[in-house]
């Protein structure tokens, strides 16, 4: 985790604007951002500061108007749709504020969903045993070993978010992008989720970008990046910000 190591995720002069009718809304106006491998970074900012848009662009859910994104030293912003789909499936894990679980699938199937997306029917039959074992292991680790076959509506908010984290990790991604993962949860449950993320970062060396508007949540990260009006305002180590 030294500054000399090449960044896992490197964002340069990223611009994004949304058009709605005659008005153009410039959301990102040249964002520079680096994430080292194994680093846990919080992105904070007020509503509308562009932090979610930045996360979507890094998660390749959307295309930037200008700028560069590199993942592991490879440009990914100009990739084809198929290439972006493949990277989302293999290298990036995402967690959202409202969990975004598939209501028709039970907990285990939701965790397996990215692998089912990856494999065709025949391949799936071949890898199914290993995949299920892996998903079961993740759910066990998050204390959901007894709720494998519950549908999302039968789970509490915290449980749903832990299923979502398990789903993001089942593909063994390079980076986990979390968009307000505690936003819909009460303080205690949110703290539990946060603790889970910190632990993943510490023990597994998982690189995490956490978007939040809550300073208390943001403080759990190694570093805090503040976005304002579509630009990075400052990037300080969390400890320094605390002192300031």
């Amino acid at each position, binding site marked *: 985790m030294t500054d000399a190591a090449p960044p896992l995720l490197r964002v340069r002069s990223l611009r994004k604007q949304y058009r709605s009718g005659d008005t153009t809304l410039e959301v990102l106006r040249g964002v520079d951002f680096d994430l080292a491998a194994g680093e846990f970074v919080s992105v904070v900012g007020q509503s509308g500061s562009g932090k979610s848009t930045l996360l979507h662009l890094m998660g390749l*859910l959307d295309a930037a108007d200008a700028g560069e994104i590199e993942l592991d030293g490879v440009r990914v912003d100009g990739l084809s*749709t198929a290439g972006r789909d*493949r990277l989302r499936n293999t290298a990036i894990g995402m967690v959202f504020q409202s969990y975004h679980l*598939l209501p*028709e699938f039970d907990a285990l199937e939701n965790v397996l969903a990215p692998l089912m997306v*990856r494999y065709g029917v025949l391949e799936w039959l071949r890898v199914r045993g290993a995949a299920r074992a892996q998903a079961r292991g993740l759910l066990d680790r998050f204390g959901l070993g007894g709720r494998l076959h519950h549908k999302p509506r039968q789970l509490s908010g915290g449980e749903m978010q832990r299923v979502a984290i398990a789903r993001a990790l089942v593909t063994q991604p390079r980076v986990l992008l979390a968009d307000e993962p505690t936003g819909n949860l009460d303080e205690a449950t949110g703290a539990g989720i946060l603790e889970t993320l910190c632990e993943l970062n510490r023990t597994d060396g998982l690189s995490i970008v956490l978007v939040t508007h809550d300073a208390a949540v943001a403080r759990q990260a190694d570093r805090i990046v503040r976005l304002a009006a579509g630009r990075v305002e400052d990037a300080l180590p969390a400890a320094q910000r605390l002192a300031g």
Partner: protein
Amino acid sequence: MYKLLLCWRYLRTRWIALASIVSVTLGVATMIVVNSVMAGFSYEMQTRIHGILSDLVFESHSLSGFQDPQWHMDEIRRAAGSDIVGMTPTVAVPAMLNFQVRGQWVTRQIMFIGIDEASHAHVSDFGRYLQHPGNRTQLSFGLREGGYDTVDSQSDTTLPTRPALEGAGWPHRRMRVERERVWREKLDADRQATHAATPVPTDSTRSVDQQVDAVLAATSADAPAAATVAATPATDPAATGKPADPFRQARPEEVTRMDPAQEQFTGIVPGIGLASFRDTSGIDRFLVLPGDDVKITFPTSGTPPKAVSDTFTVVDFYESKMSEYDSNFVFVPIADLQRMRGMIEPQTGIASVNSIQIKLREGADLNQVRDRLRKVFPADLYAVSTWRDKQGPLLAAVDMEMSVLNILLFLIIAVAGFGILAIFFMIVVEKTRDIGILKSLGASAGGIGSIFLGYGLFLGMVGAGAGLALGLAIAWNINRIRVAVEWLTGEQVFDPSIYYFYRIPSIIDPFTVAWIIVGAVGIAVASSVLPALRAARLHPVEALRHD
């Protein structure tokens, strides 16, 4: 893999979509049933048309016909030898049938057809449609002693719907002759009594029939009929109460005294529709029975033709269940008709016929043989046609009816397609967030689209499958359903007096069924294309934000 699993889950959880598929199910079931029943009707009709018409009909335009059928048959055999299995000459003329019902003369317009009793059955299914089991194996124009079917041999009912045929044949004839004799004697007795001015006590409460029966029982129950009949020739009204006809010796032998209780006139086989009607309870009521005598007026073969009349004895009934034939055709031995019409050359003894019925071997190309014969025989003298040509407009009308019905019914399924379209759009809107989730997990646009296409395919297959099962179940049990509906409503759904069938025919053609299924599934898939495209094009970020 997720596509299959999601399709399956959607199928199990979205009942609203199953509602949309009900119309496909009903459409498919209706199409199968309608096609089966129509095919059944069409098959029955064709069998019956073909049953009376041989494969090919060779006719002359003239009512007098052509001479020397043997020469013609040899020529036909030379032109199309290998394809011909059998041939039989016939004479067909328009004629008038007269018979007496309760003292009133009933007249019917008929086609009077002379057939060769030995060979005609080999050329068409004629024999199958007769009412006496003996005549079905070998036709005879001689009156039978009895044993006519009281149960319709072509139906699968075991109910005796024709009780009147029980005593038909010679017993009926003897009974009738006896009654006429007794009735006449009673009339004579009455007349003499009136002359003597002594009133004969009559019992006005009894019907005429009962009175006749009473007298019959009292007088000559065991007297030999022949002896009494000889004294009063019953069926020749000219002989009754008149002096002997001085010209009697000069007239042909069949009009000379005969004993109607022992002898018959030339036998004829009329269509059953000419002689009977079916009442609403499904029982056939007969105006004339085998054993009765009728008069037929027909044209001679001279120029111009003259109308002549003769007496004939009904020996059996012909029932093809094609009312057009059953209420029009009367069959008679060809030799008798030729003689009566003067179609036999007096010097040579060579007879004329006006058509030759030709039966071809199984699988022969009818049209090709017809064309070959048309080349040999000039069209201004002879008409050669297949049985299909003969009933061309009718068969074409049925085919047309079937295609129009199919188009209309298919439109129903097409309407169901729009239902699927609307409901799928709703499902896509409802599932927008899930689509976003799947895209965030790396699912491709094609993959998302194929979920909905696959879903449409699944629904189509489920709907069509259910429709197939329902349709086949109805088509197989259509007569049981008819009986149940009739029992429930008390109304006759399928009136046998109209159709002359006891059951609704139904033939399931696997090829047609396959087409219906493919069409229905195709429509279901086609109507899910637009929603699938919409789902595939959803932007992942917007989809994720969707609530």
